[in-house]
């Protein structure tokens, strides 16, 4: 369970670029919740995820994960029990290392990096078995540099890496946005499969309203740093894209093209 309590964040305080993003934001995710997050550009979705991941410090507030206060932990320390997939497929993997080497780094998440061999033969077999079901042919390319893969292949790999050691929390920031529709669907299907298999508590930002409605058990909408809609279960199943759009307009949120297409 993740509890966000009284989060406040202002970027560049005291300058002309001052930007107040959150004023006392609170949110609780129950264990196993798969929450989709929607909202206009600049609503604060990525900032929220980054605060949880520890990319930026916040001004006030508290973060509890399964009862443990993680507010003071650094980003890399929190990463030991979180999975994080970025929008940019290049950010989640290392292009100079092979597919197997990338996986081996993820396999040791939360452990000290020692002077033992970076990858064992047994691991290679494990990775082959892990990659085969993706149907992308990556299991035959274990020793190839990740730099040679396409964006979609890299994103699928990043997702596997983020969940290789079961995370207590999975954070996905528009992780399908940079992919073509077909690849985006493959990555989204994989997301669903992994989240269901391991019962992962997940926050997924998306600009695709249909995906947001179809995916997960709970949906929240953000506008100007506030949560303006939080529905789950039946209410979420009943909701339609036009409901969401209506709510959007009520809040004068700026709609970008992607959403209109949603």
């Amino acid at each position, binding site marked *: 369970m993740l509890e966000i309590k009284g989060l406040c964040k202002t970027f560049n305080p005291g300058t002309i670029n001052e930007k107040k993003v959150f004023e006392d934001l609170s949110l609780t995710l129950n264990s196993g919740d798969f929450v989709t997050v929607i909202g206009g550009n600049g609503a604060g979705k990525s900032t929220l995820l980054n605060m949880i991941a520890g990319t930026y410090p916040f001004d006030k507030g508290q973060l509890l994960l399964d009862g443990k206060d993680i507010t003071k932990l*650094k*980003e*890399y*320390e929190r*990463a*030991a029990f979180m*999975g*994080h997939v*970025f929008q940019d497929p*290049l*950010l*989640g*993997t*290392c*292009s*100079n*290392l092979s597919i197997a*080497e*990338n996986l*081996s*780094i*993820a396999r*040791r*998440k*939360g*452990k000290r*990096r*020692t*002077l*033992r*061999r*970076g*990858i064992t033969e047994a691991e290679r077999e494990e990775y082959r078995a892990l990659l085969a079901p993706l149907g992308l042919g990556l299991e035959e390319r274990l020793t190839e540099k990740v730099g040679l893969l396409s964006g979609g292949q890299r994103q699928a790999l990043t997702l596997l*890496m*983020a969940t290789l050691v079961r995370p207590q929390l999975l954070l996905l920031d528009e992780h399908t946005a940079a992919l073509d529709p077909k690849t985006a669907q493959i990555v989204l299907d994989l997301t669903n499969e992994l989240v269901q298999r391991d019962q992962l508590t997940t926050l997924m930002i998306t600009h695709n309203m249909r995906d947001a409605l179809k995916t997960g058990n709970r949906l929240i909408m953000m506008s100007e740093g506030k949560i303006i809609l939080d529905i789950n279960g039946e209410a979420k199943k009943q909701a339609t894209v036009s409901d969401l759009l209506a709510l959007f307009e009520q809040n004068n949120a700026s709609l970008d093209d992607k959403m209109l297409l949603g």
Partner: protein
Amino acid sequence: MSSVLSSAIAQGLLWSILAIGIYVTYRLLNISDLTSEGSFTLGAAVTAFSIVAGVPPILAVLLAALCGALAGTVTGLLHTKMHIPSLLAGILSMTGLYSVNLRVMGKANIPLNQVDTILSNLKDLLHLARDRGAAIPLGILAVALVIGLLVWFFNTEFGYAIVACGNNDHMIIANGVSSDKLKIAGFAIANALIALSGSLVCQYNGYADVQMGIGAIVVGLASVIIGEVFAKDKSFVFVLLSIVLGSVIYRLIVAFVINTSIVSANDMKLFTAVLVALAIWFTDLSQRKGGKKHA
């Protein structure tokens, strides 16, 4: 073998360890680290001081590498903990090291004529006639040790993490490792190698001089760039061996242009700088032609 040729090969081997150090920061960590200018001299200063004080040469060499690692750690801390841009952090260390080196040596130059060095030790061991004759065997031995160690190290969990960090620190942080720690380790390793090179070069030259590090980074870069011509998309061992080859080729070029009086010894640094600038420019041009992305 003519003495010009053998001395170019010997110097190429001994300086190649500097080039490998430069490669670690410049290519693996993606950082241009100017500490090298100071840590190369530091290696020489510590070695000369220790040997004159009676420390066995082999220990003096190890001590030099250790001091280099320390200098690298300082740059790493300036960069990661004090958030000083890497280029500036290196300049600060380099500048500070100039004073440190003078302090260590107590004067601007320490000759090593009347004392045992690692070369004279090795000469005795191999029953050779002259100290200088031991330079090539010493170079081969040192290079083999360094390459062996690095190949082992960069195939460990920690080594993988350093490579990943240099390529993409988002990725390594997202996988639960402190990128600061990895960068500091990278700086330390690189400068340990560079100081080791300084230590060997000063024993080969027969003196340590407070000015000897000037231009070291450009010499190292020249070797790396020449070496990379041979090492396109090859394995790590091959890349390291190519850098050694690059370093030897660089020394042969230097010997050639000086002996044929194409370039005077005083203009050597300018010549090297132009060589490196052109080489980087050409590599960039050919990569653009090849359609490689800029990053």
